[in-house]
């Protein structure tokens, strides 16, 4: 692990003071001074948190959050932390930030196991556990068991297990391992999706099913792997299957009954996409009638992907739900001339009606499987004399987007990883500019395309700390050779049409963990990791950041400088999301599930043969060594600092 500290230009530091933080201190500092200030800050912070960690049960972090000149989440979407963890993103702003601060750089070295739990599964485990008032809920990959663990008792025994029994055949149409990205708690119920396309609501106390609704059809290649979002009485769910020739959609189910309130397709005529009078895309490229039909060859939109398998965010002030759409299908772009709307783009919809309010097509006519489904973080950033409501998006295509969340205007798009497939984003037209040399054509191999298909970053979300104002991005450094071949559409089978081989990008490290300053649009520090990073990040008010590696190391680093402070070797590679919660005993806990898999780890969880470089859509070639470094599993680990 190597840490790179960035010191170009001005360095922004958050100096602790008597009342917490004085933000907005712009200083031009160099090497030794930076270190000195940082260590002084660490000492002060450590002291500060130690003194205040004595059983504070106030809902928000000890001490006020800084009102400084850095990005902050909107209060309505990121309310005070009650010590629970009720949805994968932590809150509607998707900060993945815990305001608990008992565990700090000063005491994290004492972090030790509190209890473990075997989930009886050994596929890619991407979901975070949830914690609601003394009960922990764990949703597993297929067969999608839902466990309730009693945190009030020693060893956290199982209260109940709910088994939804999804169709076994669904495993055969799940593109990239049989993962599930999480459940969500709201109003006494746990909501989650099953691989075979159902949404379930289960009573959080009794474990009894409240309702279930069949939404996807595996005969057409549809699965559901995403975590739902519950907002304003609606359970929002979308399909997976961008590699299977499905037609993408998002649906809103009534939270009480499970009945479909609205359903919007991501391709096709405007009436299917719920595009009407309120639709005001910012850029001319996204304006026009029935673009979801006209930007495709005849009927190709019916099997064109643009699914909704990633992350949603919600702004309670405007009632807008934000989500991105997947790659268009097939990968072989020669078969679908046109912009292929509304694939690889971002929608803002009214949560009550589903009406599209704006769209921005991040990657028009996607050439490389640059889905647009990554997490969307809500923030208010300094702008002129005030603040501007924005979305922060570390995208698959390698650019960190800052967008006005009211209009969809791109304020900036800055590379956060190595890119040679595109030149940049034209902020006037909004258009991504491709590099002609890197455009794959059927019948030839196009080499050294960076980033590779999983992008500079795939699904695994970043965390956003309002304490430091930084976004902590776990991501990839992969390039690829890409060869388009004719894809035939046969329903229920893959619709890809590409032979791909991935490998490490410049530098040879396949993963990077970057602390990104979204205001000054630059990295503050980064950690080079050997293996691709496939686990989401967690940030805490104790100024710690947690993430896992695919060979099973669970790490805590200093949020301010990336220094490794603690690590634990888990029984399987980690691609799951860590969380932090306050236990019934008042102490702060950290929890994560280790279970290697997903697209990056399928070589282990699906027992693939590493001799074929094109395995797992080309990912196998980049992680040939992984089977020697970890084994499949599915174990929950929970840590705390012993008294």
């Amino acid at each position, binding site marked *: 692990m190597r840490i790179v500290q960035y010191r170009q230009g001005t360095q922004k530091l958050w100096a602790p003071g008597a009342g917490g933080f004085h933000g907005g201190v712009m200083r031009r500092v160099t090497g030794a001074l930076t270190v000195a200030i940082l260590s002084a800050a660490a000492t002060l912070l450590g002291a500060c948190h130690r003194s205040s960690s004595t059983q504070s049960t106030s809902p928000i972090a000890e001490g006020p959050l800084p009102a400084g000149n850095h990005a902050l989440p909107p209060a309505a979407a990121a309310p005070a932390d009650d010590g629970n963890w009720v949805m994968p993103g932590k809150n509607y702003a998707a900060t993945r930030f815990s305001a608990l601060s008992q565990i700090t750089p000063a005491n994290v070295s004492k972090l030790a196991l509190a209890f473990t739990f075997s989930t009886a599964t050994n596929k890619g485990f991407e979901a975070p556990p949830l914690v609601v008032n003394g009960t922990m809920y764990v949703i597993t990959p297929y067969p999608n068991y839902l466990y309730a663990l009693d945190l009030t008792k020693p060893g956290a025994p199982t209260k109940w297990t709910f088994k939804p029994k999804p169709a*076994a055949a669904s*495993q055969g*149409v799940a593109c990239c391992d049989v993962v599930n990205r999480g459940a969500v708690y709201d109003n006494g119920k746990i909501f989650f999706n099953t691989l075979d396309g159902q949404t379930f609501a289960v009573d959080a106390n009794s474990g009894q099913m409240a309702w279930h609704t069949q939404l996807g059809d595996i005969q057409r290649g549809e699965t559901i792997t995403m975590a739902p979002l519950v907002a304003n009485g609606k359970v929002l769910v979308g399909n997976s299957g961008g590699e299977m020739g499905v037609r993408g959609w998002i649906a809103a189910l009534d939270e009480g009954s499970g009945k479909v309130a609205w359903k919007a397709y991501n391709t096709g005529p405007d009436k299917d996409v719920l595009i009407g009078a309120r639709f005001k895309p910012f850029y001319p490229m996204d304006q026009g009638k029935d673009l979801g039909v006209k930007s495709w060859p005849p009927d190709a939109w019916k099997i064109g992907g643009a699914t909704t398998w990633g992350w949603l965010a919600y702004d309670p002030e405007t009632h807008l739900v934000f989500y991105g759409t997947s790659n268009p299908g097939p990968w072989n772009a020669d078969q679908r001339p046109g912009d292929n709307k509304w694939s690889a783009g971002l929608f803002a919809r009214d949560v009550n009606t589903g009406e599209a309010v704006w769209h921005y097509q991040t990657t028009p006519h996607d050439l490389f499987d640059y889905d647009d489904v990554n997490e969307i973080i809500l923030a208010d950033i300094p702008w002129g004399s005030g603040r501007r409501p924005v979305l922060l998006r570390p995208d698959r295509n390698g650019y960190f987007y800052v967008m006005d969340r009211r209009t969809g205007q791109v304020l900036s798009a800055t590379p956060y990883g190595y890119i040679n497939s595109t030149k940049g984003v034209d902020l006037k037209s909004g258009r991504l500019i491709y590099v002609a040399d890197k455009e794959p054509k059927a019948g030839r191999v196009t080499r050294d395309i960076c980033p590779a298909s999983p992008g500079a970053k795939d699904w695994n979300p970043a965390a956003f700390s309002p304490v430091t104002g930084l976004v902590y991005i776990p991501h990839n450094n992969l390039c690829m050779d890409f*060869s388009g071949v004719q894809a035939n559409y046969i329903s229920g089978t893959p619709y890809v049409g590409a032979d791909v081989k991935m490998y490490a990008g410049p530098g040879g490290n396949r993963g990077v963990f970057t602390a990104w300053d979204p205001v000054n649009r630059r990295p503050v520090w980064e950690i080079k990791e050997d293996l691709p990073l496939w686990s989401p990040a967690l940030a805490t008010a104790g100024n710690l950041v947690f993430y896992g590696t695919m060979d099973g190391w669970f790490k805590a680093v200093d949020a301010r400088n990336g220094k490794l402070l603690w690590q634990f070797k888990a029984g399987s590679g980690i691609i799951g999301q860590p969380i932090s919660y306050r236990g019934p005993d008042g102490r702060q806990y950290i929890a994560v599930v280790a279970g290697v898999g997903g697209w990056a780890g399928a070589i282990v969880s699906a027992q693939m043969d590493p*001799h074929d470089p094109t*395995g797992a859509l080309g990912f196998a070639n980049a992680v040939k060594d992984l089977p020697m470094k970890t084994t499949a599993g599915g174990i929950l680990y929970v840590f705390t600092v012993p008294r």
Partner: protein
Amino acid sequence: MSSRSRVSLLVLGAAALALAACNREEHHSRAKPIGETVPAGESPDTIFPGSSTAPPLDPRAALYDNNANAISQGQQLFLQMNCVGCHSHGGGGMGPPLMDDEWRYGGRIDQIATTIAEGRPNGMPSWRGKLTEDQIWDLAAYVRSLSGLPSKDAVASRSESMSAGTPQTLTPHAEMNNSDAVPQ
């Protein structure tokens, strides 16, 4: 070594080559027609109550197994029918790998043909009625060749269609330990 034995070696070698070539070019299209059915494909790993041995290999296996034409035809079908989308070029992904020496449902060619025809419960689609029996046998011959079991002279040095994969004659394989995939 005498010149006579060298000559006889040469003759023997030529005969062997000729024979191999003969086998390689023996297309089953000229063979006696056999009824179009795909076998039940019982696995040697299955328990057969009341008897101690697995049923014999389907007689048609000999027409397809290790046959260059069948393997080549199967390779094209493997791409056209999107098998490659799940199994890649043998390394697996959505579906299990086919180039290793583990066979969930048996590695005999008739067992592979059955798997293709009937599907399997964890996601393998059923191709009965979508492909002809002949095509299913061709596919089975190719799938079996992915594991490196047939002789190298039967597999193609280049694909009939565009592919970035390694030619089968050059595909590296892990050391095989095939208990259930030995031709009978």
